[in-house]
């Protein structure tokens, strides 16, 4: 079972490595969206520091949504998804593996870029640390819940926009706890409470979301 999971993850990583343009696009989207805010709002460091957690977190959710429609679509088009679902291995592991691969490809680079953006927004060092930590706990949630949306909208016309509509409301708790952790750090009350809640939400998503993604994949392939 673990072997199947690792195979799914390795396969997606290999495909991503062969097509570097895809994930670079999502990263630059993330950086550009964040960089637009100072241009729109003004360069005062105090103001930027105040909005930085929210801006980075909203941009992270949008960047994850940008890449999600492709999560199952390519495999669906060439028929390999159907073969994987027909295999005796549980579909839950397939859904979980896909979400993990999505996080490794699109989530980890966000963590690497986020400190640079934090510096641009005049965040102090300890707040940048909390920002990276909150993204490390929160972006897996985005991948896990996003996989549900990607499976539900598989093969539909206008699937990308629809996916946004379905999944953004479900992202709200992650956004609140994630940005809240950095805010609390800046306010001096400590980020532990928000990070703990974010961790709890992550564990719940990890348990529930793959089952629903798997069921949604079966529904979409009928």
């Amino acid at each position: 079972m673990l072997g199947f999971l690792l195979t799914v993850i390795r396969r997606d990583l290999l495909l991503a490595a062969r097509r570097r343009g895809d994930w670079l696009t999502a990263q630059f989207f993330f950086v550009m969206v964040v960089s637009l805010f100072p241009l729109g709002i003004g360069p005062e460091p105090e103001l930027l520091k105040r909005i930085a957690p929210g801006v980075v977190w909203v941009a992270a959710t949008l960047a994850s949504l940008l890449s999600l429609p492709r999560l199952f679509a390519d495999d669906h088009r060439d028929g390999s998804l159907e073969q994987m679902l027909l295999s005796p291995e549980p579909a839950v592991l397939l859904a979980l593996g896909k979400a993990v691969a999505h996080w490794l490809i699109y989530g980890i680079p966000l963590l690497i870029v986020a400190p640079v953006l934090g510096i641009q927004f005049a965040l102090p060092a300890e707040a940048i640390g909390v920002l990276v930590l909150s993204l490390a706990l929160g972006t897996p949630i985005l991948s896990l819940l996003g996989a549900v949306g990607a499976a539900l909208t598989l093969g539909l016309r206008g699937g990308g926009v629809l996916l946004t509509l379905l999944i953004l409301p479900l992202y709200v708790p992650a956004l609140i706890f994630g940005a809240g952790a950095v805010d609390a750090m800046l306010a001096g009350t400590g980020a532990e409470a928000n990070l703990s809640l974010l961790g709890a939400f992550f564990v719940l998503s990890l348990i529930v979301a793959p089952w629903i993604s798997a069921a949604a994949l079966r529904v979409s392939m009928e």
Partner: protein
Amino acid sequence: MSINWYKYSAPATFYGLAGRLVPWFGGAAASLTVIGLYLSFFVAPTDFQQGEAYRVIFIHVPAAWMSMFIYLVMAAWAAVGLAFNTRLSFMMARALAPTGAMFTFVALWTGAFWGKPMWGAWWVWDARLTSELILLFLYVGIMALWAAIDDPRRGDKAGALLALIGAINVPIIYFSVKWWNTLHQGSSIKPSGTSMDEVMLAGMVVMAIAAWFYTIAVVFVRVRRIILERERHTEWVKHVLEGA
């Protein structure tokens, strides 16, 4: 005497039953609304803190209750449909969503009318307003998914799964938003008793029951349309339509 409930899980028999029940629920909803509005606007005393503007709550609170309750009922029908693969359950879920979204919208709209004189703002980002807004987004998402999928069987199940994950998420969203910011006044109705005048409470309860009956009547009308649309190739529908 035992009733054979399974008989009414078939769309064809439920179509007739719902048709017979609609006038009763509709009539009850109309008369209770009249009674409730009379109690709310003529009998209930003026609130000494909030003046006359508080009377918005007689519509606002039942609408807010219904918006959340309908979501749960919809998710429950979705779960029943996924578990037992009964077509009628999915049709009920589909019929409930527009009414739920309508009540959510009414709750937000009337809340704005209440907020302007009380807080001096049409909208504040407080916990309950925000979670109600997100509830509206959830309804819209589910209805958009249903609208995007042409195959009714796939649409039923996909929407049901989304309703389920939404139902798991609703309490989390509620508490996250609550801890995020709270400015809304506390609930007036608490399990340990209420801080309201009895007539005010009566008016609100009557309005809430009217909202229930209205929902049932409208959902039955809508589910009858869905049944006709889905079963249009069957003999009994041709029979019904020729008779009409």
